[in-house]
């Protein structure tokens, strides 16, 4: 077990290293530099700026300097936000993105359960069709359209929620729904199919044979059993929600990390881009690791390869 953990961890580190290197290389290859501005700088000003950020050094040396920093948890200074470190920026914004991701996940879970169960119970009936229809809606609308629609309806027309910004409990509702729509769809499908699979198992037949009521069979025996696949996707799902929330953060003006990423890309803020990419990758790596550990714990039959 320990060996397995160690290997996975090592593997995660390799992924992070590859990502750092690739992003670093790619960003340097892109045209446009962080200090190109409309008021073109006299060469001496430019030289001073580049010296300050070590951009005048050979690439390999810059790369070495950067890696050394990352190992110590220092992602360097932001080129655009002149008085701030990348690490500070991430520390400020990452919790918000995480919170938003968690909320969306909670929303998806709470609403997908009844839908999935309903669909499984009345398999192939009209309820099943209706549920599948509702669930499909969730993955068929671009985030920005859904977000705008919700703002228009619930805050401008009905006045129930704030149009944007983060802070009050109610201000989280609309972004949560927007971000949670797709995982809601996905989870509904997953719960339905997993439940159907469980219902075919022997112990369910036994339970039925014992004369238990259908509803009891469903809730007591089948549902808890079919939760396992749901639990296992929560990790990657959560990671996807954190890394995929930038449009929602943008539309609802939420001070999360994703919003920074977009502006960092257009501003060529190299350290910030690499920093954010690294954090996102780390989230994914950790999520996958957790799933693997979870598996090896609940089912010793899975080979800890």
């Amino acid at each position: 077990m320990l060996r397995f953990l160690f290997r996975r961890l090592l593997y995660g580190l390799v992924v992070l290293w590859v990502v750092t290197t690739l992003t670093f290389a790619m960003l340097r290859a892109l045209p446009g530099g962080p200090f190109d501005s409309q008021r073109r700088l006299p060469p001496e000003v430019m030289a001073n700026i580049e010296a300050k950020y070590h951009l005048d050094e050979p690439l390999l040396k810059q790369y070495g300097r950067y890696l050394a920093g990352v190992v110590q948890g220092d992602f360097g200074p932001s080129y655009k936000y002149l008085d701030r470190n990348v690490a500070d920026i991430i520390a400020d914004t990452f919790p918000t993105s995480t919170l938003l991701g968690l909320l969306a996940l909670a929303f998806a879970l709470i609403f997908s359960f009844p839908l999935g169960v309903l669909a499984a119970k009345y398999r192939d009936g009209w309820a099943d069709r209706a549920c599948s229809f509702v669930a499909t809606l969730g993955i068929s609308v671009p985030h920005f359209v859904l977000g705008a629609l919700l703002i228009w309806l619930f805050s401008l027309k009905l006045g129930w929620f704030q149009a944007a910004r983060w802070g009050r409990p109610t201000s989280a509702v609309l972004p949560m729904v927007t971000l949670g729509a797709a995982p809601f769809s996905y989870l509904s499908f997953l719960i339905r199919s997993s439940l159907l699979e469980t219902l075919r198992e022997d112990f369910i037949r036994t339970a039925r044979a014992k004369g238990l009521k259908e509803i009891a069979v469903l809730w007591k025996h089948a549902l808890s059993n079919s939760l396992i696949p749901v639990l296992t996707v929560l990790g990657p799902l959560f990671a996807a929600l954190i890394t995929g929330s930038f449009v929602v953060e943008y539309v609802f003006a939420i001070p999360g990390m994703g919003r920074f990423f977009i502006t960092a890309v257009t501003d060529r803020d190299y350290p910030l881009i690499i920093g954010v990419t690294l954090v996102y990758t780390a989230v994914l790596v950790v999520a996958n690791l957790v799933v693997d550990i979870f598996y090896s714990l609940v089912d010793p039959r899975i080979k800890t390869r």
Partner: protein
Amino acid sequence: MIPFCLKMACAWGTNSGKITPTQALFPLTSRRRKQFLWFVLPCLAVLALSSCKRSSSRDDGATFRVNLSTEPPSLDWSLATDHVSFNVIANLMVGLTEFDRQLKPAPVVAKSWDILEGGRKLVFHLRDDVQWSDGQKVRAEDFEYSWRRLLDPKTASQYAYILFDVLNAEEFHEGKIADEKQVGVKALDEATLEVTLKHPTSYFLSITTFEVTYPQRRDVVEKFAAKWTEPENIVTNGPFLLASWKHENEIRLKANPKFFLGKPAIENVEMFMVNEKTTAVGMYEQGQLDFLDNDSIPPLEKARLSKIPGFKPVPQLRGEYYGFALDRKPFDDPRVRKAFAMAIDRSVFPRILHGGELPSSSWIPPGMLAHNLKIGLPYNPPEARRLLREAGYPEGKGFPQVTLAYNTQEDHKIVAEAVQGMWKRNLGVLVRLDNIEWKVYLKRLQNDPYPVFRDGWGADYPDPDNFMKLFTSNSGNNHTRWKNSRYDQLLNQAAEEMKDDKRRRLYDEAQRLLCETEVAIVPLFVRVESTILNSRYIGLEYNSMQRLILRNVRLNSTSGVK
């Protein structure tokens, strides 16, 4: 989320192929199952409930809320480069002078000044009742320190060059002079600042209105280094104090009771960072914002919003133009350039941009000395076609494939698509459009300009020198690669000339070269900022250089507080 769908789509497909642990389904003993369930679900519920912080905002009119649209990159006025940062700084700080309504420098910290040696030397006399927020007096040394810091190579300020008219400033910045004391700025005593220039400079006083020349406290900057602009460290002298700064979210200001011109009427200012214009408009309509400008209003919503009370267009000292790459075919031929210029119907711009933009065929914007609407090439399709035919492309036949490039932004796109249409119709030439994101765009303009490119300029100081200098032979901002020695000579004369009518004549001739005979650029229009102020308030000033001044904002007593 979308890539997530991709992922999941594939997971669906693998229902039968359980190879990774993630996708496998398998039975468990029922006790373990339940434990997991009862452990995980309550955790999620608690997280969901405990997650939201409470915040209250009373609506008694004492708090004025504006949208900055982005996080200010820096509140250090030696390092700031953009109007968002300057708009915060301008409400925290005052400098030697500030613009009056006519954009003439008016005294603030400097109560008066003497111009000596024919414009080569300026001596500023400071007031003695201006205080820093920690109670110390604002002294001439604070200016001296700030100016030297701006020029110090170690500061690496992008605006260092703005002071290059000062004696030895450029040399100090380049490291040719190591001793900062040789720079021509000096505190003679606590209340007297002497500035020595390289040569007489007609516009230098305007530069002292610019935020980068505001004073700084050496002790504070040196003690806190890069963190000196954080609310707990910063020391300022203006109408408002920096109360808090939640990065990428909001900045709060509170009125400075010790401000020497009197405490502002509104107690608090909240500045939000809402990037998305559509969202910002929604917030205004819901009462979450009290003021909007172009950064917060989508062009296509302007027609509707212009009907609400409090809407006010403010013409800007900001021009838009299309430039040509003059060193290559086909735009090396002035006839071709003229033809393209005369095929643009500028009257269309305000109608498609909806913001009351001012079509202009000349470059110097209204509100500046030497603005002259009569200069430039008017819309004239038959003449344009004739010129193109003369250049060897009758009805656009045989014209090479050229690209019109613009940086990614909604209104640039609308303008480019409209101009593309006009050239197609009037000249028979279909240009390709290319939108490029800003930093890449700038790099390309500097190294290898597009045949036709969009660019604009906003004034650093309200003098034609700032606008016209863009196109001198050695200007780093002259992406057209146009070189004209007569033009350069006219601009040098005009900069050192102290009389307005003489300067006007010089600039007229220069403008004719630029937009009429040589046509290095085609000026399109002058921007107008659409602003909306909640009618509960009055006294907000928004000037033609995008500066938002809040110190006189107060509740409109006639409208009543709801």
